[in-house]
């Protein structure tokens, strides 16, 4: 059965995943909207940057984050000067790296949903006196609920499942940065297979259920592919 240390990692994982998902929805929504609507020449390069975590090995991302956030990195120096200390091996550092790691999993469903709406409902709203911001809340968000659902579920589930970035940036500090995936690794290392089974099996079941739920709720899964 699960030990109290296991429960602590589960709780921490939940905290990291929810914070990450909320932050990503908050910042990812305007970014996704901008990427869909903009005619900017930088659109291509920005799309490439935000999609990078899809293809990079998590250890590569984690390695560079460790360096940038560390004492001698650009952000590390900034946070030290601000009196915040350095971010690696802290909860905040874990959330920030998770945000970068899971960014495409939130952005892409939103981008797909936004581009499916097209410009016609926006034009209708404009002729009915709705400002662009008003239109976004009263039309765009209402028409892309399945995109938001997909983004939330994928962002959360993908953060729960991360390992490489967490290990590089967060380390393996009990109650502080030790999440479920790392705990499974610890159990396996210590040859505690039955403990590992409980956690790994739980994670498997969780991921399966949440995806099953997602595909049952989202009305037309074919029109909302996970990736474009």
């Amino acid at each position, binding site marked *: 059965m699960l030990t109290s240390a296991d429960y602590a990692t589960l709780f921490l994982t939940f905290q990291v995943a929810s914070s990450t998902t909320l932050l990503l929805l908050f910042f990812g929504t305007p970014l996704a909207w901008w990427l869909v609507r903009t005619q900017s020449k930088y659109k291509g390069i920005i799309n490439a940057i935000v999609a990078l975590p899809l293809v990079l090995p998590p250890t590569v991302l984690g390695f560079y984050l460790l360096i940038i956030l560390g004492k001698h990195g650009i952000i590390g120096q900034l946070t030290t000067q601000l009196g915040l200390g350095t971010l690696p091996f802290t909860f905040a550092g874990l959330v920030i790296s998770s945000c970068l790691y899971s960014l495409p999993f939130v952005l892409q469903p939103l981008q797909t949903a936004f581009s499916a709406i097209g410009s*016609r*409902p926006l*034009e*209708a*709203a*404009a*002729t*009915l*006196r*709705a*400002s*662009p911001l*008003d239109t976004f809340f*009263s*039309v765009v968000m*209402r*028409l892309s609920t399945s995109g938001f659902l997909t983004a939330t579920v994928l962002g959360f589930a993908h953060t729960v499942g991360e390992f490489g970035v967490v290990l590089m940036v967060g380390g393996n500090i009990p109650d502080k940065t030790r999440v479920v995936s790392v705990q499974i690794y610890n159990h396996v290392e210590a040859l505690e297979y039955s403990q590992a089974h409980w956690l790994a099996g739980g994670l498997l079941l969780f991921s399966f259920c949440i995806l099953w739920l997602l595909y049952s709720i989202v009305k037309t899964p074919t029109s909302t592919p996970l990736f474009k």
Partner: protein
Amino acid sequence: MNTAIIAKFKLDYGDFHLDIDVTLPSLGITVLYGESGSGKTTLLRCIAGLKQAQNGFLSINNTVWQDSEKQLFVPTHQRALGYVFQDANLFTHLSVSDNLDYGLKRLKTAVDPTQKAHIIELLGISHLMSRMPEHLSGGERQRVAIARALVLNPRILLMDEPLASLDSQRKQEILPFLMRLNQELHIPVLYVTHSKKEMALLADYLVILAHGKVDAMGLLSQTLSRVDLPLSQDGQASCVWEICIAQHDHADHLTQVDFSGGRLYLPTIPLAIGEKRRVQIFARDVSITLDMSSQTSILNRLPATILDMFTDNSGQAVISLQVGSDKLLAHITQKSVTQLNLSVGKAVFVQIKGTSLLN
């Protein structure tokens, strides 16, 4: 300044160049007519502000919405307009009732609530209020879209081929509403279409567009009867007269109607005495004689004066005539022109073989 619509736009869009400078009447329906690619929809979108012409000036009854020289461009949502899209473009996540209220909630000044009820009744959509757009027919959707634009009490109504995506039966379902709108609305309507029938039925004023430029514009009757325009030269060339039902001759299955130049006999029209409609008279159904004496089977013979003639090398001639205060087009052969010695200003008689009632 006068009360009118002044629209000047210059827009380059790939290969397409829009170059428009028009002054349009501030009342009645102005039809923007042209083939696809003529720029009629682009012009309408520039007027709505959905497209921004690099160079433009737009004033609707002294309210300026765009003036490039002064860097002025009022965004669409701040323009007091109503816009009806080709395929209704209702919000699919809102019921009919919520679609109608969407704009109303956003108006800065409240409108008279009886007006909304009146528009709902006028367009016959009161039984649809709780439905979702996906459960409406194409015709119903378009009626809701028209109502949604009108409840805002706009200063101008812009309609982009509102019937183009409907089959002829659905068109027939909406046209009477549009005709009633024309009588009840006291705002200018700009109506984009490539349908000659809709143009003949609805237009008070006609703007013909081709290749992004204005080919011709003027009152409907004057523009239709211009012999120098391609519109008067093709097989479907016609003129449109306003008529008023005067008398029913039940025994002969005929209805007598009055127009500016006298009386016409038409096949029975099931309308009450005094009702007004439009009839379309095709140029191919009009022939010309020099006297009234000869016996003929044609009932409608009227005195007329030749206004203008156009001949090309095809052996055909296009003649425009004045009948009462109306204009008429006739397609005859060049040989007839010579035989009858027709010339501009000559008094003749026209025989009208057929008319078609527009409704």
